[in-house]
Every structure is written in C-alpha cells, then in structure tokens.
C-alpha cells in the first residue's frame, strides 16, 4: 500500500511540488538579495536614472563619479580612519586582556563557585541593552574630558568587546586538552610560559576569528559613536552617513557609494570567519 503511494508521488505530485518549492526559494532569495543589488546599482547609476519612475532596473550607463567623489573627499577619509582606528584599537585592547581572562577562567578553579558566576555575568552582557549605559558613559567621558576623542571610542567599544572576547576564547580554551600544558609544566615551564608558548599558538585561529568579530561589531557600532562624537576629529563612518541621510535626503549617489564602501570590508571579514559565523554572532551560544 505504502509503496504504491510512493510510486504515485514520484510521478506527478513530486514534480509539481518541487517546482513550487524552488519557486518559493527563489522568491526568498530575491527578497534577501535584491536590496543589496539595489544599493550597489544606485551607487553606480547616473543621477537621472536614480530618480526616474518607473525605476531603472538595469542600465549600461554606469558611472564611478560617486566613488570618485568620496575618495577625494578628505572628510570621508578622516571618518573612515576614525572608524578603523576605533575598531582596531578596541579589538587589540580587549584581545590582550580578554584572552588572559578567558584562560584563567577556563583553567583555574576559583573559590565560591566564582567560575560559574563570573561566566554567567559575562554572558549576561550579551543581553544588556547598550542604551542603558549611554547616560553614565556620556557623563564619565565628559568628566574625563574625553568627549569627541577617538580614545573615548576605543574605551567604549572595549567595554562590550571584552566580555565577548572572554566568552569566545573561553570556549576555545575549553576545547583544548589540559594535558598539553601539563606536560610543559612538568618540564619546568611556568604557567605564563606554557600559556604563551603552548596554548596561544594552538588557539591562534580562534584568536583571529574573535579579533575579526570584534572589528565587525565596532565598525558597525552606531549608538556610542553617535553620543560620544561630534566633529571630524572622532566621528565614525556610520554616524557620518547617518548625519548625511537624515539631513539631506538628496545625495543618494554619494550615500549609497559610502554605504558600499562601509560594508565591503565587513563582507570580506565575514568570509574569513565563515566557519565561526554562528558562534560569533550568537555570542558563543551556538557552536555550529
């Protein structure tokens, strides 16, 4: 009976339903990819084509004028430099501190179940809404006279990068067999020596992935940059773009070109950490 049903399925119904399946998948793919295509296309269109209705779906009249405009715009360069410095600086700072913190959390047993509590506390920062920290953060930076400086951004980004580094690296250290260091300790190495010479080289891919995630998050970060910076001396790229968009709705070519430039490095980074993508984005919650 059942076998008969199976044969019947494979003739007509299956072909029909597989067509439906692919049609549905195509629809989803278009929905998710089209906006990106549209952004890139807009950045390459001439102004007349940008504003035409019905829209120009595809055109051969492409121009690189908008890219030329932002590349020769010294303000854009400053903003990109600020962004790069803030995300590189905070990644470095939180990696140095976070890797060591994660190692001790992974290897040493602290009293009063502190390992457990500290781990949960670190994990809870993923749930912490950044907006609740902007008032104190702003007041602290003002008291320290750090408003509108790149140092303020580096420090602020390290605040949310550090727990992320600790949590990610703790996962990588936990996966490493303890015997490796034990043999180094037996041979008379210190804990620090074993950490630097044996453990660190083995988790190097994990460190690289974690660093890249830190940079993705800080590069994309918007809220802290919005409240902590005002002028070209510290403004980051996202805030610069946002200011343009919300004030002059007209310069779409430049805006979309700037958007493409801002997202390209992130796509390259994402390709580099493809293997750890889910793990990083879910704060280590999913080890896919």
């Amino acid at each position, binding site marked *: 009976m059942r076998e008969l049903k199976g044969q019947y399925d494979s003739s007509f119904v299956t072909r029909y339903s597989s067509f439906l399946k692919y049609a549905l998948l195509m629809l989803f793919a278009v*929905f*998710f990819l089209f*906006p990106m295509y*549209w*952004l890139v296309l*807009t950045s390459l269109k001439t102004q007349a084509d*940008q*504003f*035409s*209705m*019905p*829209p120009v779906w595809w055109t051969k009249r492409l121009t690189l004028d908008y890219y030329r405009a932002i590349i020769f715009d010294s303000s854009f360069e400053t903003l990109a430099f600020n962004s790069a410095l803030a995300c590189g600086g905070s990644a470095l700072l939180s990696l140095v501190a976070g890797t060591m913190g994660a190692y001790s959390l992974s290897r040493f047993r602290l009293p009063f179940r502190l390992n457990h509590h500290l*781990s949960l506390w670190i*994990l*809870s920062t*993923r*749930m*912490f*809404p*950044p*907006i*609740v*920290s*902007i*008032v*104190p953060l*702003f*007041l602290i930076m003002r008291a320290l006279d750090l408003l509108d400086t790149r140092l303020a951004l580096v420090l602020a980004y390290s605040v949310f990068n550090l727990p992320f580094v600790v949590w990610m690296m703790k996962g990588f250290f936990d996966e490493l067999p303890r015997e490796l260091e034990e043999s180094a300790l037996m041979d008379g190495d210190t804990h620090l020596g074993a950490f630097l010479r044996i453990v660190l080289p083995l988790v190097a891919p994990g460190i690289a992935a974690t660093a890249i995630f830190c940079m*993705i998050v800080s*590069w*994309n970060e*918007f*809220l802290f940059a*919005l*409240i902590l910076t005002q002028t070209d001396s510290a403004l980051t*790229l*996202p805030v610069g*773009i*946002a200011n343009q*968009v*919300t004030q002059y*709705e007209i310069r*779409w070519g430049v805006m*979309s070109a700037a*958007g493409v430039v*801002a*997202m390209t490095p*992130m*796509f390259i*980074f*994402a390709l580099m950490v493809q293997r750890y*993508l*889910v793990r990083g*984005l*879910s*704060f280590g*919650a*999913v*080890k*896919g």
Partner: protein
Amino acid sequence: MILPPVVAGVTWRLIYNPNFGVLNGILRLFGLDTRRWTWLADPSLALPAVILVDVWEWTPFVFLILLAGLQAIPQEPYEAARIDGANAWQTFFHITLPLLIPAILVALLLRTMDLLRIFDQIFILTQGGPGFATETVSLYIYKTAFRFYDFGYAAVLSIVLLAVTMVLCRLYLRFLKPNALE
C-alpha cells in the same frame, strides 16, 4: 547580519522612497496606484515597514542558528520513524520540531534581546516618527537624554528597561536546558 545597520537603513530608505523608491516601482508594475503609499511617512505603514527591514536583516541569522540545530540532530530517530511508517509531516512535527526546540529558544532569546534595544535602523529610517509611530524604548531614552537633556529621567527609563530585559532573559533561560547555552 554583518551589514552595518546604518547601511541597511540607507538601503531601505532608498527602497521605501515614495517618489522614486523601488517598492512603489514594483507595485506599479502590477498596476497599483502608489501615490497614497508613502511608507515611512505614513503613521500606519511606518511600523510594519520598519519591522520588515529587521526581518530582512536578521532572518539569515535565525536561519543559521536553526541550521546548526538541525545538523546536530542524530539520524537514528528518522530511521525509526521511517520503519514505523511515519509520513513527512509526522516526522517533522514529532521528531524535528521537538529536537529543534533548544535552537529555536536560543534564536528567540537572542532576537528578543536585540529587539528590546533596537535603535540604529529606526534612527536612520524614521527617527521614531511620524509622530510616535515607530518610537522604541531606546529611541525614547536617547531623545530624553540628548534632545531634551533630562539625564535623570533617562537614567530612570534605562533602569526600567534593564529590569524588563533581565526578567525576560531569566524567563527564557528557565526554559532552556541548563547547559544549552554553553
């Protein structure tokens, strides 16, 4: 997912633009009169429009979490089900879905926490407008502190938001198996 939220906002402003936006362009292909639909400027359409942007940006992330969950399900229950003669729907509802619940809960937890603090995209798309149609808690706190300079009230709002976040987080974690997050 790794797209800067600001860039996502710019992209969708481009799409939603009532005069030359591509969304109204597509609707026109179907012969609809699009002059009434101003999307982000319409109090009743702005919120669904903003929600769609978030769905667009974060569905791939949920997809990846669920995919990781699916790949972790062992083959044996499926073999048993096939021997017992279960059809595809029964297999899905009685095996796949129950075994996928931890992954679904993780996705739900992360997305809830992200949405409680949503700020960037809405700031770019509508700044909370028109009126208060798309104003979220985060935007309200931001405006209280940095438009009206009422730091005290903003701090109170922050603490309430933090309390709500913590309660929700604990609720979710109670449903999760003790080690599902580690």
